């Protein structure tokens, strides 16, 4: 009500609204403005990617705007090797997500539900891959794979060299395990153990209790972990670059081609992945009545 008054009584306007102290003005105007600008900083490159997917570049490099065209979208995989690379990326992401989610969930359950010797050490081992720079993990995996092919081992351990699809998969499972463990652990820790006790009081055995009570309750954590693993895998470049040999994933393909050409298809595939992922999130949030909380 008070805020309406000044409209009819302009003389008292200044009295009704005393000058705001500096902090309050920062809080009310500067902070939101700053946040909007920062979000803009985060989103501009994505906007550029989408806009330039409609470009018809002059020459081989899609760096400067030339004219509007939907050619890229009509022929999204029309560049040698691109389609294969995308398929490889998807396959590795799916397979590494499945394996890492299973292995990581088992570790997460063991760590949160049981006390045993060496638990602290194990927590440390899980933490290490997340604190190691990707380039170190890539480099060290490469030395291991190469060592199996050189004397003194030379050929006694088959399959790891030459590197390729299988070594990429091994690496992706490795770096995904820790992220799955951490995500699942967070979910299991907030879990009310009395629910399980209640199930057993009602006559369920351990296995039934697990599948009917425990598993459904921790499932959201497992799904979140799997989504995280999938997105980490499909986007990984640094580690993959060390262990891919002659196999191309989409990021590796982009990296190897960008010196000689920058086809508009890169932007098209990037935009497809982006819009697909956003679409999935929107659908799931509509179904659950809100964008899923991060915690």
């Amino acid at each position, binding site marked *: 009500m008070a805020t309406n008054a000044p409209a009819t009584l302009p003389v008292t306007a200044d009295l009704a609204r005393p000058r705001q102290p500096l902090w309050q003005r920062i809080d009310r105007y500067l*902070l939101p403005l700053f946040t909007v600008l920062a979000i803009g900083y985060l989103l501009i490159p994505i906007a550029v990617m989408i806009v330039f997917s409609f470009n018809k570049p002059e020459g081989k490099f899609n760096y400067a705007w030339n004219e509007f065209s939907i050619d890229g979208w009509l022929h999204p995989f029309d560049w040698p090797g691109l389609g294969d690379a995308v398929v490889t990326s998807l396959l590795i992401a799916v397979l590494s997500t499945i394996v890492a989610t299973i292995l990581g969930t088992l570790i997460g359950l063991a760590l949160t539900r049981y*006390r045993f010797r060496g638990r602290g050490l194990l927590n440390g081992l899980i*933490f290490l891959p997340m604190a190691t720079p990707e380039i170190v993990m890539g480099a060290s995996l*490469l030395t*291991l794979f190469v060592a199996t092919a*050189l004397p003194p081992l030379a050929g006694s351990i088959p399959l790891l060299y030459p590197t390729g699809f299988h070594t990429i998969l091994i690496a992706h499972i490795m770096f995904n395990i820790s992220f799955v463990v951490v995500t699942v652990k967070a979910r299991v820790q907030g879990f009310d153990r009395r629910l399980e006790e209640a199930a057993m009081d009602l006559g369920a055995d351990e296995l039934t209790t697990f599948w009917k009570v425990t598993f459904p309750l921790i499932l959201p954590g497992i799904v979140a972990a799997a989504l995280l693993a999938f997105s980490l895998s499909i986007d990984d470049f640094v580690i993959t670059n060390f262990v891919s040999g002659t196999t191309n994933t989409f*990021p590796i393909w982009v990296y190897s081609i960008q010196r000689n050409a920058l086809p508009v298809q890169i932007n098209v595939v990037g935009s497809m992945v982006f819009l697909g992922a956003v679409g999935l999130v929107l659908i799931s949030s509509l179904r659950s009545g809100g964008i899923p909380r991060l915690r």
Partner: protein
Amino acid sequence: MTAAAAPAPPPRPGLRRRFNKAVPWLLLAPGLLWLLVFYVLPVVQMFTYSVSTGSIETGFTMTMSADAYVEALTKFGKQFLNSILYGGLATLFAFLIGFPVAYSIALRGGRYKNLILFLVIAPFFTSFLIRTISWKILLGDEGPILGPLKHSLGILPGGFSLLGTPVAQTAGLTYNFLPFMILPLYVALEKIDPRLIEAAADLYAGRWEAFRRVTLPLALPGVFAGSLLTFIPAMGDYINAELLGNPQTRMIGNVIQNRLLVQNDYPVGSALSFILMAAILAAVALYARALGTEQLTG
């Protein structure tokens, strides 16, 4: 909290109990084995190569020679410093940008909270490489920013360029790892009970005082996690240096990549990675002690 999952039904000692004791290890075994073989063993192998001599044709023999370390430290000091400098700058800028953003989402977000969070993680839905290439388009000499500033507005001279400068490299690094800073800060700030800040005000703390002595200390775990999650990948990165920087701004990642993948120089490449890993682990430990957040990592 203790022992096995179930309050052991009718006590049937012997085999059953031994099985119960083995359960956690059965659950752990496959994942643990994977990490031991494909995380720990490679690091051991890398160390072995770093003290070996030989070539890719003849194989490498472990001679406990420190030559590779000497070469790594004497020849590539500049690239190590660049990594610390640009990684550090990116972390600092990410904090300066990320803190106000995390603060306004957590404490002022209201019903837009989830939407803003979604926008913060949206860049993750695009490939890291494509985002960096987008920066190359954006900052190009005739790109959407410099083009108008040079020609239609005429503010900048025609020869001005951003690509291939430390500025572009820092902007790219900051950009690429900013969400890793914002998310942990948000989680830490979101947990703060607003009544604590009110209590500070009731006790006659000014806004600044309340912020400095209540909000900030409570947000420290987020600062810790966020700066590590930003600094570690930024320091090891070589894509931003390659696409947005110039030969003078190359970082240690560029050298490691070149030694291992181009020159097949495994001893020096391994020594460089080993030094990088040791430096980062030492920095994490020191940093944890300085912030008094050691318990966070466990």
